[in-house]
């Protein structure tokens, strides 16, 4: 048997715990050994479950260790990493959680997992200096509506029908206080310096931030937010975004603000 064929048999038997020890394997006593082969199978599954447990600590706390590991094992059985860089593993774990029937009762769980994924992305995102607030606020007032912004590599907005930001924040400490989960929240994830920040946006800011992250000009973004909520304060919202390091530079678009 070629070495390629042997490797294929090992790979298949690692994937499927119901398979016997692959042909061609033996032990010092001259017989194949199920428990010896199980060490490999176990290493693969346990290490990948562990990678998910590290990437989704709050999801894990919410459902408990045993439930999380069962859910992660089910994911690992279906989705092997496609790269040795495990930082990227579990990108579609939140979608898997959404379709995992035993977790259906926790409606907020998939979005909470999406927030954790965004947090991890921000943690490993490229270095970039956040856009200095003075560079924006010091401009002539008639220039402002035409400005659009390039998001910092760490920045992400996670929107949910559930209070995922409050749930997430409550689980960053030892003793979890009760959280009202039924409220919609949008969480802005940024990394202005070394530390990742997860900030629940005021409800009125959501359309504004969404538009700006889509690189809409400031004037257009403010107009949209104002039509949704006449009390919206664009100056306050913009200063907040700049302080959180949401952007890395101004991108002035040639077609102008009316596009």
């Amino acid at each position, binding site marked *: *048997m*070629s*070495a*390629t064929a*042997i*490797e*294929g048999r*090992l*790979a298949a038997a*690692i*994937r499927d715990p119901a398979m016997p*020890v692959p042909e*061609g*394997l*033996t*032990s*010092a*006593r001259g*017989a*194949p*050994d*199920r*428990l*010896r*082969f199980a*060490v*490999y199978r176990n*290493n*693969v599954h346990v*290490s*990948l479950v562990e*990678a998910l447990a590290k990437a989704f600590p709050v999801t894990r706390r919410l459902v408990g260790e045993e439930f999380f590991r069962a859910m992660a094992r089910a994911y690992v059985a279906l989705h*092997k*990493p*496609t*790269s*040795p*860089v*495990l*930082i990227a593993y579990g990108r579609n774990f939140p979608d898997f959680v959404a379709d995992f029937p035993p977790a259906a009762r926790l409606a907020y769980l998939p979005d909470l997992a999406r927030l954790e994924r965004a947090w991890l992305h*921000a*943690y*490993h*995102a*490229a*270095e*970039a200096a956040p856009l200095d607030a003075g560079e924006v606020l010091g401009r002539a007032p008639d220039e402002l509506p035409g400005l659009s912004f390039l998001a910092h*590599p*760490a920045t992400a907005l996670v929107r949910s029908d559930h209070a995922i930001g409050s749930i997430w924040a409550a689980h960053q400490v030892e003793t979890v206080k009760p959280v009202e989960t039924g409220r919609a929240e949008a969480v802005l994830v940024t*990394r202005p310096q*070394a*530390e990742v920040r997860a900030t629940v946006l005021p409800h009125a800011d959501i359309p504004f931030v969404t538009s700006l992250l889509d690189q809409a000009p400031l004037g257009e973004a403010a107009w949209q937010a104002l039509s949704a909520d006449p009390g919206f304060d664009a100056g306050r919202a913009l200063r907040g975004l700049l302080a959180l390091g949401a952007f890395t530079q101004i991108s002035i678009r040639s077609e102008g603000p009316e596009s």
Partner: protein
Amino acid sequence: MSTHPELPPAAGLGLKPEHYAEILSTLPAIGFFEIHAENYMGDGGPPHRYLSAIAEHYPLSLHGVGLSIGGSGPLDADHLARLKRLIERYRPASFSEHLAWSTHESAYFNDLLPLPYTAETLDRVCAHVDRVQHELGTRMLLENPSTYLLFEESTIDEVDFLAQISERTGCGLLLDVNNVMVSAINHRLDPRDYINRFPVEKIGEIHLAGYDEAKDEAGERLAIDAHASAVRPDVFELYEFTLGRTGPVPTLVEWDNDVPAFATLKGEAERVEAALARIRPAARRVA
């Protein structure tokens, strides 16, 4: 950034995120730090910030776990490029990888899986090592594996297999003494015989770690390379026996799971330093 041309013949430790801050604030007397390359393949953020700061003070050893050098498929060009970027950025004193495979077709198994030792696999591993050294522009060290089962197809002894790879490719060898013990227990071999036959002049680094133990189907000892505890007495004894042949060699203590407080790791490094100090006066035969 690093000005260290090679690893010192001293005790090193695996660098763990739990210990970044303590290492930077106390700058403990450790010979070098080793990192798993794949953990630093994100674009930026705290891991790179800490590593850059630590690399200002210590030589670094870059240890890959995902290149699948023993695999039947071609090497992953993207992964080689990522390794090259890390080497250019941090200028580590050493780069090492494993005699094992971890990727089959496009699936990455995140474990160091075994291969049969035959003329065919020898040719392929040599071709892979040649390519790695060519692409990365550096001599690499190849590590002996710990294994739990044997292949009926194998026709070449593991030590001979490693010696021939080193001979043909010019690569150095990383001798994992814990792996020698684990495999020796698992395959009823004499660990000292393995060390005695090992081409010690090719050793660029030694690894030590703790193993776990279970029983196989026949109730025989099954040692598991767990990296979750202190170095066991039998492995430490074998290490001292090895030093008798090699003289002082850069020696890493690996503790990757159930990572303890830094003081515990430092205690392990001190045990290694003491063993290195005991053989230093008689270490004339190593250049």
